[in-house]
Each structure stands twice: as structure tokens, then as C-alpha cells.
């Protein structure tokens, strides 16, 4: 199948290095301490953060660090065919991966003896859910005012028809090509998350990896804007 036509356009009309439209909003769940919705094209994720609060299960307490918990789930209606309800291995792994990515950007050492819960729900899945989850979680954590060393952002890139492609949608993702998800701390310029599958020669991987990192930086800009906008709004309200 042809995923990139001779004019260099993808199935949904994007160029190889073009991202889908990003819509993000913070403070969408009233009861949560922090929350955000993050949309990337047709992928839509909602994140809610509770904490820092008292540790519920004392035995999980870590010395001198806050305990970060993360729960990732996919709504039944998020994909075309209804998913079987089960606590599958993919969700378990994603919860772990997202939790550890967020731990890298939260200053856990300034909040010992406390717990931060991150809940993530995929409302619509159209590829790149784990990136969207990380971006949503970052916004929600910032909204909750949890001390962070940087904004962790994530973006994916793939390789199809010998072209590196930024931000794969579901059709492109399930085409069987490589899929590289990168999570970075943009200001520190460090890579925290890196997941990749399918076979790629070393050199190709480097270009795909670089493309995904560029994508991350673009997303970081967008996330910043959203947060700045939100903070400004709060200022206005206080002033009024």
C-alpha cells in the first residue's frame, strides 16, 4: 500500500514532517487537583492528577521521594471495534512507562512522604496514544502545581515507504513499519522515554529518532503556549 504519494503527501494530506492539529485545554475535571485534555488530530486523551496527598498504602512508601502512581486505560468506545475489557499487558506496560517518564520530570525529592496519582483515559484512539498521554499528563501536573524540573513531552515518528513520517495515525501505525516514540525534557535536552519496534537499520533509525525529537520540541512549544495562556487567564480573573 502507498502511504506517501509521489507528491510527498500522506493519506490524510499531511507532509512527512507535519503534525496533526493539537488542541489542549487544562482544568477540565473540576474535582481533580489538576487536569487536562490533549487532542492530536483524532486522538484524544484526558488526564487527571490528584495530589500531592497522604500515601494510601504505607508499604509502598519510598525513602525521601514522593510516590507517583499512574493508571492508563482505554475507553471501550475509543477504537472502531469495541475492545474487550481486560487489564491487558499493554495497559500495564504503558502505565509503567508513563509513570516513570513523569517521575523523571517531577521533583519527587521535594515532596517526601506523599503520593501523586495520575489517571489517564484515552477517549479516542487514532495512533500516538502514549505520546498524547504523556503530553496530557504534563499539562495536568502543571495545572496541579506540582514542582517539576521540566515539561516532559512526547511525540512519535515512523518509517514507511522509505520515508520517515512524523506523528503516525492509526492506519500508518498498523501498517507494520517501524514506530519510534520519544519522550524528552526539552529544556534539559535529555531523552527520558524511547520505545521502538520493528526492524530498522541504524542510520535510518537515527533520522527517524531525530525527526521525533524535532516533533517533541514543537509540541513543547505548544504545551508552553497553553500553560501561559491558562496562567494569564488566572491573572486576569484575580485582577478583576
Amino acid at each position, binding site marked *: 500500500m502507498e502511504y506517501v504519494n509521489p507528491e510527498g503527501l500522506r493519506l490524510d494530506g499531511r507532509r512527512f514532517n507535519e503534525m496533526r492539529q493539537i488542541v489542549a485545554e487544562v482544568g477540565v475535571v473540576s474535582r481533580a487537583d489538576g487536569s487536562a485534555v490533549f487532542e492530536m488530530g483524532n486522538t484524544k486523551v484526558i488526564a487527571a492528577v490528584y495530589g500531592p496527598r497522604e500515601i494510601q498504602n504505607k508499604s509502598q512508601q519510598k525513602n525521601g521521594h514522593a510516590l507517583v502512581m499512574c493508571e492508563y486505560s482505554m475507553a471501550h468506545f475509543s477504537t472502531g471495534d469495541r475492545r474487550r475489557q481486560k487489564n491487558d499487558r499493554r495497559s500495564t506496560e504503558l502505565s509503567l512507562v508513563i509513570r516513570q517518564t513523569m517521575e523523571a520530570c517531577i521533583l519527587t525529592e521535594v515532596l517526601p512522604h506523599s503520593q501523586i496519582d495520575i489517571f489517564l483515559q484515552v477517549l479516542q484512539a487514532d495512533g500516538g496514544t502514549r505520546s498524547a498521554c504523556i503530553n496530557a499528563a504534563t499539562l495536568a501536573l502543571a495545572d496541579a502545581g506540582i514542582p517539576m524540573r521540566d515539561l516532559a513531552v512526547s511525540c512519535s515518528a515512523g518509517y514507511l515507504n522509505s520515508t520517515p513520517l512524523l506523528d503516525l495515525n492509526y492506519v500508518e501505525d498498523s501498517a507494520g513499519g517501524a514506530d519510534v516514540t520519544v519522550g524528552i525534557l526539552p529544556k534539559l535536552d535529555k531523552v527520558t522515554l524511547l520505545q521502538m*519496534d520493528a526492524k530498522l537499520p541504524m542510520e535510518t533509525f537515527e533520522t527517524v529518532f531525530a525527526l521525533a525529537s524535532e516533533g517533541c520540541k514543537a509540541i513543547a512549544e505548544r504545551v508552553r503556549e497553553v500553560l501561559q495562556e491558562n496562567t494569564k487567564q488566572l491573572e486576569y480573573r484575580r485582577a478583576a
Partner: protein
Amino acid sequence: MEGRLANMWRLTVNESKFVETALQSELRVDGRGLYDYRKLTIKFGKEYGSSEVQLGHTHVMGFVTAQLVQPYKDRPNEGSLSIFTEFSPMADPSFEPGRPGESAVELGRIIDRGLRESRAVDTESLCVLAGKKVWSVRIDLHILDNGGNLVDAANIAALAALMTFRRPDCTVGGESNQEVIIHSLEEREPVPLIIHHLPIAFTFGFFNKGNIVVMDPTYIEEEVMCGRMTVTVNANGDICAIQKPGEEGVNQSVILHCLRLASSRAAATTKIIREEVEAYNREKSLQKVKRHPTLAKPEVSGPIVVVKEGHKMSEDEAIAAEISREYVERLNLSSVELKSSKEQEAVAASPGNFKGGPSNWDPYTEAMDVDSLKASLASRGVSVTKSTIKKKANDSGNVQKEVTGDLEMKDTAETTKHKSGEMTLKDAVKPKKKRKNKSS
């Protein structure tokens, strides 16, 4: 709570500090260099598709099985490959029995991604009947001892098990031409899996805010390190999977450095695995050849056991006797010589014998005769006693031998029932002597 605290394995402040300071001068606690791998040993089990991998103190067992199932709807002509992990509580005090924990799931997923998404195993060749029957290959990985770096060890165990796995051959046939006939291992040589390339996992540990990289971390280092990355590469320099699950951020250059290290290492590890597998295959094929001379041995004990069972049977004995009589008569038809080579004949008649079937297969055919003999013994007690006496005269030596001789004699006695009793005895003694010579 107190119990949990007491039984938790913990690293002292001294240890964690020392590990880090030593690493700063490029030293590791077990005396290795930063990029040295621990000693890798691969062993194989008796059965197809079982492996045992030891990487330093880490010990993982892999086991591959296959089953015919209905294919997934979206992939009607592809078999499937699934990976299951078992973190036994015996391997590490922190492993808990019951449902697989986060780390067990992650380990399974890393190996799964490396093997499946890179199409290391040809799943299309696992299809028997498109849309109806495909082979579903299951890899079970059991962690027996956790000395650190479970992922690499488990990955090698999975590869070694896959490479030595043989699935039973099967053909499509039957009336509607839609039935799948599975041929047992004795009937047909089992078929190996088609493996295109070997994706090998290499785990790196990051220390000191991602500035120090270490290969193949031990359990002590795993406790101290601030980040981890597993890179799965093959010997052709392709990257099959990467997993860096969050944690401390590292520079891009460090990641690329790790990738290069891994791909430079892949060829060596591939070679080790291939050599071990070849050695195992060679041994396995040698075993098949060796089977001939050892055949006589199980026979000695085999019939004795069956005789006991034979006693219990009464009604069926007669029928069995008839069958066996026919069988032996056929062999006896031409000449006495033929009779003496009966043993070989019987073996030849059952080709399965040479194909790695259970060793008691052969005694079974023999046993049939023995049972029937028994029946005949019961009816003609006199002749039997006679024969025993004669035999004893011939050689009053080894008791065990005598018993077998006895049985054989009965055997032949049965066959020549219609002829004279004297003949039987002579014949009976002959093959026995022959056999004795053979075994000595």
C-alpha cells in the same frame, strides 16, 4: 508491615555510594569493565524447545510449545507467537506469587516486541489451513534466579528454545480435504521453525545522571542505577526494538553510543547461541543413531513387567494369543534362521523406533507375544517346565538373562504350537544364545 520490612532485601547506603564512586573510576563491583558481559551459559533440555540460560547468577528457563488453533480474524494465514513470563518467588525475595507484576509484564513485552515486530520467526509458515488452523507457538519464560539483567537472559533463553523447537509435522487430508492430520514424532521427522534473524537484547544501566553507562547490570547495580535502556539488535546491524521506559533523561549522543555498542556486540552473542544450538542438534542426531545397540537392553526388563500384567488378564489373553500367534507364524514361515533374526525384524517392522520414540515402544510389541505365551503356558504347563529345565542346563548363570530366555522361549513355543514340543525348545535356546553373544 513488620514482616514486609524484615523480608525486604535492601541495599545499604554504603553499597549504593560505593557502586557509584567505583563507577566514576570505571570500576564495577564484580571486577568487570563497564561494557563487559557476564559469562553466558546455554544448556538444553531433553525435549525439543527447552533451554536454560545462565548469565552470571541470573538463571532463566525457556520452554516452547505449539498447538493448533484457529487464526486471528485479521490474519487468517499467519500463525501466532506469544510470550508468557513467570517470576517465581524462589528467584528473588521481592517477587510475589500470583499475577505477574509490572516488571514481569514489561519483560514479556520487551521480548515480544523484539521477536514479533521484527518478524524474527516466520509466522506465515505456521499456517496449516488458511483461516481454519494455524500453529500457535507459546514461549514460557521462567525466572529461576535473579542476579540482575533478566531481560537479556530471558531473551537469549527464548531464542535458544525457539531454535531447538520442533513442531510435529502435519498434513491436510481426510474426506473433505479439510482435515488436519498431525503426525506423531515417531511417524515423521518434526519440523523446525523458520527463524529469519536473531534479535538479541542488550540492557544498559545509567548512573550519575545518565553520564555513566554500564552494560549488563547486576542486581546490585540495578538497585542503584537511575535509568535503564534495553536495545534489541540483530547481527546485521538492524535495530529491532528499544525500550527506555522513562526514568532519568540522558543525552541523545549517549543513546546512539549505546546503540552502536549493542550492534557491535550482537554478532558475538549470535555466534555463541548458534554454536550451542548446533552442538545440541549434533548430539541429538547422534543419539538417534546410537539407539540401535541399546535396543536390546530395555527389552530385558520390559517383558518382565508386562508378564505381571499378563497374569491379571484372562479372557483377553486368548484373543491376544491368537493375534500374536499369527504374527509370529508369519515370521516363522520360511525357516529357522528367519526366526533367529526375528528380533531385528520386529524392530524393522516398527520404523518409529528409530525416530526418537519412547524406548518402551519396542518391548510392547514383544509384550504382546509374551502375554499370549503366558496363555499358552497356562494351558501347557508341562512343556514349559521342561523348557526351563533345559535352559537351566544350558546356562545356569545370570538370572536376568534366564528370565528373558524363558520368555523368548515361550514366545517361540507359542509359534510352533502346531509342530512338536521338542522343536520349540531348540529354537527357543538358539536366539537366546545369539543375543547373549551380541550383548557381550
